């Protein structure tokens, strides 16, 4: 069960190297590494000399994308063990960045949303950020009742990991929170929630 056709659902238009940018900052997660290697195949390696890559392997660690990314010899390659150090490093990068810097994000939706959240704090217009969805379609969902956020939601409805309410997943998205908004599905008659359906593999 999914409520679709809500305008706030983000669109990920794909990475597209901006030829005028003075510097490229790639923030990639898991399968998102392939979004960059595909660009290199299509456009050649010239832009890598002014590129910085921040990579979080996450669930794709066995595929060793980090080796492939490091082999591209970008100006800077840095690998994060988990998301938190990634966000810390990103803040430091953006704090020093100048207007000619273009930001590219690729990975799962939850990752893109959380990187975007930091970027917006730095006054970057979201329309100027290039994004590409790669890997799992699992969602990051905020419970509109208790405000707790649950990562990697693959079913709808699902039980909120904070308050336990059964939540319906919708396309209603908050860019500010970097999460979809889940609402209680059986509020009128508690206990009548339909069976969870696997929707976001």
């Amino acid at each position: 069960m999914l409520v679709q056709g809500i305008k706030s659902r983000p669109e990920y238009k794909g990475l597209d190297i901006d030829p005028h940018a003075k510097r490229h900052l790639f923030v990639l997660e898991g399968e998102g590494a392939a979004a960059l290697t595909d660009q290199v195949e299509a456009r050649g390696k010239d832009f890598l000399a002014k590129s910085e890559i921040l990579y979080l392997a996450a669930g794709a660690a066995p595929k060793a994308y980090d080796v492939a990314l490091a082999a591209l010899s970008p100006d800077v390659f840095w690998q994060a063990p988990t998301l938190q150090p990634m966000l810390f490093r990103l803040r430091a990068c953006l704090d020093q960045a100048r207007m000619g810097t273009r930001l590219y994000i690729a990975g799962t939706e939850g990752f893109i949303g959380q990187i975007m959240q930091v970027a917006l704090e730095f006054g970057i217009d979201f329309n100027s950020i290039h994004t590409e969805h790669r890997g799992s379609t699992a969602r990051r969902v905020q419970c509109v009742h208790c405000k707790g956020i649950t990562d990697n939601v693959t079913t709808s409805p699902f039980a909120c990991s904070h308050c336990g309410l059964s939540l319906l997943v919708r396309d209603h998205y908050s860019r500010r929170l970097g999460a979809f908004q889940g609402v209680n599905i059986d509020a009128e008659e508690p206990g009548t929630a339909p069976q969870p359906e696997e929707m976001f593999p």
Partner: protein
Amino acid sequence: MSLNTDMPVRVADVTEVTDLVKRFRFERIDGHPMPFFSGGAHVVVSMNDNGLLRRNPYSLMSNPDDNSGYEISVLRVPNSRGGSVFMHEQVRPGDQLTVSQPVNLFAPDHRGRKHILIAGGIGITPFIAMMEQFSRDNVAFELHYAIRSRSHGAYWQQLLDRYGPRRIKVYVDEEKTTIPVAEITDNQPLGTHLYVCGPAGMIDGVLMTALKAGWPKENLHSERFLAPPAGLPFQVFLKKSNIHMTVGEHQSILEAAEAHGCDAPYMCRGGACGQCETEVSSCDGTLEHNDIYLSDEEKTSGRKVMICVSRFKGQQLVLQL
């Protein structure tokens, strides 16, 4: 149509700023406060020039916090359509005029962490209100202001006194100093927004330089002063109003429609906002699109026209108006 909330005002004050620039202060005749506006906003001033209705947009330059009156500055442009000459020669303190509600098509992006303002000549006016707002909100900004000569340039001294030389940079043609746009756009912190207002050539140059320096277009803002260009007279039929009319040499389609009593929608009267977009029923000839609102595809399709600035060459133009 135009929201029909125009305000009758009295000219409270007329100040000669330079040889060619006069400042006008308007206050409401009924004594009520003016609506608050935001920096970058303009109003359309309606003038009755011996029975001829003239409507010109002017940027508001007074403090956006001050709702006791509005102030605009008018550059006298002798060989133009006559609105600025009318303001300079005919309008005196105590006169009555009508101004529209404020409309902002050039608002600062409040998500920005720093704002760079680039002005040429009379293009300074929206920035005077914007800077009041930035200063009040304690937001980082700098102004780069190009003038022909120190005697012809308006407000540069007052701005220097008010905000200091660190934030106000003045460049003078006569002294061979020009705005170093490449240097300015080269090294700005992420989250900077740039705003440019002035002659078309200057706007194009600044935007092009910033894009080449790697700025995303989302951080670039401009306001152009497009006056309706003159051209050969032509015939238009307004289908819904059932009016056959001739658009004169120095008239826009919108002005001709208004002169025939057709209450067409408008906001900026400068080809920028899209409010006066009108459907073309048939067109036996060529549309001359002078606006910066329609996309190139829309212009080519010939199904829409912005009647505030665009013209027509040919036999007959029929509009859904």
